[in-house]
């Protein structure tokens, strides 16, 4: 089998595994065991404790939070197998990856591909160390699924651009240090008039207003740009190349929104284990309600396939040296299953699973309710399910546009 390792490679892997275990033993604070990654979460930051800070700095220094990124820019410089070992050992120890967020998921990989040497030197190392939070300036009030209809305009003023316009659904905009944005530099061409640029959120003229969502949370913002000066060196790629670069970034977004570890973490404990706590069971431990049991099995079977699909997309992409065609289904399938799980969780818990606030509800019950509501966004943002279907039909299946 091609996937089996040569004896030498296996010895190297064992040595590396030991190195990772030693690193965790030396650096991972016990009090953080089995706790999540606040920085990468969608709800924004919690105040970093000294232990969290120490762990972030330790991982950041090694570059292991971004294990496969090049070492010269602060990444881990690891191969896929080594990266998997880091992931496995972290999981075994109950340790989380403290380096996350949009810089890691979307912006970093895109900048590594399209950025200038100076831009990479400036922006990638702080992402690897988890020091800078990025937000995404994409959607506008009239540019949602029809993203290329965006109107935020960057006027050429010689040594800088003057940016005016409004972005919306800016995830984490209120906490972000910087924004990667697609803006219009030419009004005469819908797609070729778009450029990709980097905007400091503390520049005068940038105003952020959080939007309260059905979940009661405010993970998204409206972001207004009024005569915002953006230096020319913050343009990524060429003027007019923004649509190409912006779409590449969306591919990273889709892969991460669905297949990556973040989705798996969001899923939490298995539904069947939760059901056994809330619902009546038979003497042998099986669920007494046969219909609910069947529904849970039906979900868990498809969820198992999805995890296999996500793994396969990674393996195929690696073997082909390009994005595998099944990557196009990950976002659509993963987000739909996530929503189905949230609905099943409510069915399992009954009204106890619909609490809004109060001590009578456990933290996990309350979080699930907010998560169920927030989860409705997952099939809308990052290219809605309908847009994913268009992409699959046209790009993968070669089904033509209406003539």
């Amino acid at each position, binding site marked *: 089998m091609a996937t089996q390792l040569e004896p030498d490679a296996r010895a190297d892997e064992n040595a590396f595994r030991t190195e990772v275990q030693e690193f965790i033993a030396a650096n991972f604070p016990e009090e953080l065991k089995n706790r999540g990654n606040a920085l990468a979460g969608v709800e924004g930051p919690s105040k970093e404790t000294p232990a969290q800070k120490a762990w972030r700095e330790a991982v950041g220094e090694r570059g292991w939070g971004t294990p496969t990124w090049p070492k010269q820019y602060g990444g881990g410089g690891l191969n896929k197998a080594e990266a998997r070992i880091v992931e496995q050992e972290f999981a075994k120890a109950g340790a989380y990856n403290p380096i996350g967020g949009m810089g890691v998921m979307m912006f970093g990989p895109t900048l590594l591909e399209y950025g200038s040497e100076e831009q990479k030197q400036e922006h990638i190392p702080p992402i690897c160390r988890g020091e800078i939070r990025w937000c995404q300036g994409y959607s506008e009030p009239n540019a949602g699924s029809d993203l290329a209809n965006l109107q935020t305009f960057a006027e050429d003023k010689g040594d800088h651009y003057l940016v005016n316009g409004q972005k919306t659904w800016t995830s984490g905009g209120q906490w972000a240090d910087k924004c990667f944005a697609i803006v219009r530099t030419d009004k005469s061409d819908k797609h070729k008039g778009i450029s990709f640029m980097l905007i400091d959120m503390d520049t005068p003229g940038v105003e952020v207003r959080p939007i309260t969502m059905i979940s009661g949370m405010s993970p998204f913002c409206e972001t207004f740009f009024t005569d915002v000066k953006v230096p020319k060196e913050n343009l990524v790629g060429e003027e007019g190349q923004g649509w190409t670069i912006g779409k590449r970034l969306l591919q990273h977004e889709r892969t991460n929104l669905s297949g990556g570890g973040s989705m798996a973490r969001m899923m939490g404990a298995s539904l069947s284990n939760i059901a056994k706590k809330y619902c009546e069971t038979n003497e042998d431990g099986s669920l007494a309600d046969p219909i609910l049991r069947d529904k849970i099995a039906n979900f868990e079977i498809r969820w198992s396939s999805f995890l296999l699909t996500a793994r396969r997309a990674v393996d*195929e992409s690696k073997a082909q040296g390009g994005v595998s065609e099944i990557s196009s289904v990950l976002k659509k399938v993963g987000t739909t299953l996530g929503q189905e799980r949230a609905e099943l969780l409510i069915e399992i818990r009954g009204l106890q699973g619909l609490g809004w606030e109060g001590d009578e509800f456990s933290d996990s019950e309350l979080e699930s309710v907010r998560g169920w509501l927030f989860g409705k966004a997952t099939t809308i943002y990052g290219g809605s399910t309908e847009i994913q*279907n*268009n992409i699959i039909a*046209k790009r993968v*299946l070669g089904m*033509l546009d209406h003539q």
Partner: protein
Amino acid sequence: MAVLNEEQEMLRDMARDWAKNESPVAEFRKVRTSGEPQAYNADAYATMAQMGWAGVIIPEEHGGSDFGFMSAGLVIEELGKTLTASPLIATTIAASAIILGGSDEQKAKWLPKLASGEAVATLAVDESARHDPSSIETSVSGGKMTGKKAFVHEAHGADLFVVAAKDGLYLVENGDGVSLTTRKLTDQRNHADIAFDGAAAEKLEGGGDSLLEDVLDRARVLTAAEMLGMAQAVFDTTLDYLKQRVQFSQVLATFQALQHRMADLFADLAQMRSAVEGGLQAIDSGFGVGQAATVAKAEANRVLHLISNQGIQLHGGIGMTDEYDVGFYLKRARVLESSWGSSSYLRDRFARLSKY
């Protein structure tokens, strides 16, 4: 598609070319027309065995290539694409039972013959129309088997039956005390009820308490591989048809309602492939076989059901005709969905294995 090694790619390409050129659906039409209960072309099976396909999971010392289940699945998938009728899956399942549970003598006697195609074998477990390995009445006393088996795949033409009795699996050679009754199912393939009346039976003593379930898991995964090939073929044919067929002065592929349906099916097919390949790989690695095999067959059932129905719907009226192949896939699909575990059976099994 799982990432393959060079041997596997060669094997798959060989099977793909052979199925396409030598065994298109037109060949199955000939078998059907002949009306023989055996319902496969014995010469074609001899050729398949010569190419080594019957020995893919059999150890080299017994005349096989020991390439494993992932490799066997690749061949079976390609043959499933063209609905190739053959006892390859049945023989491979039976061989796996002998490999897991057979004595050295039993292995030496049967495996080389199965690998070379000289003998054909099949697994007989169920005694009624629904898969239920927990209610077996067939018994053996003094080396003689008594009992009935229902809807046995590839029974006609089989030299050897691997038969589940109350106390384990037995090898029974076709001969005295074995009588077959043809059961013509909608797929018009080779099925029969078998009555054992004092037939000589030799127990598979190895393999432990889980032997029957272990063999059934192999049957589930290999059947799922055939179903994967069928689903892929129906999907590809349907997509092709949508790109040709013109209505309202437009090819159908330009209509968004159909684009989105195909995108949904494409995603389901991706899920099915992951599950089936996951099952094959689990058997090769020996890790988590029960659950992986259950997921593989459950997903194969779900997705092939969907795609075989949509294949007809999207072809429109022409898909209802015997002249078009798509209906053949629908009929074979239901037979395989009902074999070795229906969707509800498999969901129950998944829950049982997961202890809920």
